């Protein structure tokens, strides 16, 4: 689909072992092009969240290489610039969590301008201008002075997306963004994600939201016990999967 585009995220042979024995990721490779939307599916405990968290180093990979927009970090390499590289990767990646994790002591607006001001050193005025634009984009302008506890789950997740976008990231990581939401609130969040994908954002999403996987994703990957078992276009994965386990998994969640 995007044959000629540049690589945005490249994961090479990544392993993650928790403790001494729990081998969660077993040599994962993944290459995501600029502007591509990739959805990762898999049973719970299969390692998909861990993989996502390895990309921005919320989890340290035990082995392997992570590359985001030209910044490369290899696990286990003791480099003095490593910490800075991790911060650089995090500045380039936005992440949305299942539990939103908005800062409860700040208003919606303060949540959004916190990153640009503290991390990027922007002037408050400039940060507020862009934050207002983003709030308008996620449709929550009237909530700017509210604290997160006064918002519904769907609204909180939209603020969380705006908060990530305020950093002008190159990649957005979604870690089950709709799993904690009431069914009637899922739509408003998926809608924002869909618009984001249409505007050309590179997206890696772990989600069970089948509409998003089927209609928005360029590519779907299925993970099981720390390895890919299948990958392909949504049409192929949903209509004609090669693997029996993919079939079983899809039968389970559809």
């Amino acid at each position, binding site marked *: 689909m995007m044959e000629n585009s540049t690589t945005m995220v490249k994961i090479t042979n990544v392993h993650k072992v928790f403790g001494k024995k729990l081998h969660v990721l077993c040599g994962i490779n993944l290459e995501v092009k600029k502007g591509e939307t990739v959805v990762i599916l898999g049973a719970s405990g299969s390692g998909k969240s861990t993989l996502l968290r390895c990309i921005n180093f919320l989890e340290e990979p035990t082995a392997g290489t992570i590359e985001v927009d030209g910044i490369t970090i290899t696990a286990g390499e003791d480099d003095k610039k490593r910490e800075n590289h991790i911060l650089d990767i995090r500045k380039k990646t936005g992440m949305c969590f299942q539990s939103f994790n908005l800062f409860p002591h700040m208003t919606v607006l303060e949540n959004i301008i916190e*990153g640009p001001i503290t991390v990027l050193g922007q002037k408050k005025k400039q940060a507020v201008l862009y934050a207002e634009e983003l709030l308008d984009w996620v449709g929550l302008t009237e909530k700017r002075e509210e604290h997160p506890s006064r918002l519904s789950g769907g609204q909180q997740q939209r603020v969380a997306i705006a908060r990530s976008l305020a950093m002008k990231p190159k990649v957005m990581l979604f870690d089950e963004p709709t799993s904690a939401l009431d069914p009637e609130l899922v739509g408003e969040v998926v809608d924002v994600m869909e618009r984001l994908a249409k505007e050309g954002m590179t997206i890696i999403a772990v989600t069970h939201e089948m509409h998003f996987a089927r209609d928005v994703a360029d590519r779907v990957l299925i993970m099981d016990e720390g390895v890919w078992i299948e990958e392909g276009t949504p049409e192929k994965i949903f209509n004609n999967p090669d693997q029996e386990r993919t079939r079983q998994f899809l039968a389970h969640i559809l």
Partner: protein
Amino acid sequence: MMAKTMHPGAAGIPLEAQQVLQQIETKKTKYKRNMAIAFAVLFVFMITGLIVLGLDFKFMAKWLPFILAGSGYTFLVAFLAISLACILAVVGALGRLSKNPIFNSIATSYVSLIRGTPLLVQIYMWYLALPQIGKALEGYGIPGIQRLLTLPAVPAGILALGVCYGAYMTETVRAGIQSIKIGQTEAAKALGMTTSQTMKRIIFPQALRVIIPPVSNEFIAMIKDSSMVSLMGVWEMSYRALKIGRRHFQSLEMLIMVAFIYWIMCVLLQFCQEKIEKHMARGDRRIS
């Protein structure tokens, strides 16, 4: 029909529901009234008790200014000591949570040692034993150290109380920091914040809210423990009250008076605490 939040008395609420709401309202009013009565009765009992005891109010009034003159020491010692304790507590808590072995072991030993020894002993340590340490050090060839370590009573008291309370508050602050969910740290890190930015902008402001009540507790305890500086001959409030009471054989009057003064101070502090807590709770979901 759309389910909307209705206010009591709004049209559409059935009569029996309105009656229940009315009952709840009446119950609340009744409770408030009974509380007021109970407090008033207690107050009357207390005043009657004081009169029945045959207290010499003239005597109390005569010495009140003299005793209040000692409150300066109480405030000075308590305020400076709590400031010192707060600084030590934050540094100590960061040490206890640190992965740096030197920093961590110092903080852990500090808490263990200070919490494990009586405040009384610590006060005398600062006041009486420190000069001796100075003397020993001078013997090793550090000139002038003995004079430096021979502290006047008030600074010794401030240091003793500050260091002691700092140890207790270290654990309070540590618990406060640890009570903040890991997701907050992750969200801050995902934005690209450094560890210190995360602590300063995200974790600490939230932890502060959790630790205000226990820290106020410490502050109130500190106001009263500041009377311990009288052990070193400082003429602060309780020392004055004891002296005057003994001299005139009217200890009861003096003790009751000084107790009241402390109480009033602590009530004022509690009032401040409630104000601060309310201010900090503004991010909460409001239920009313």
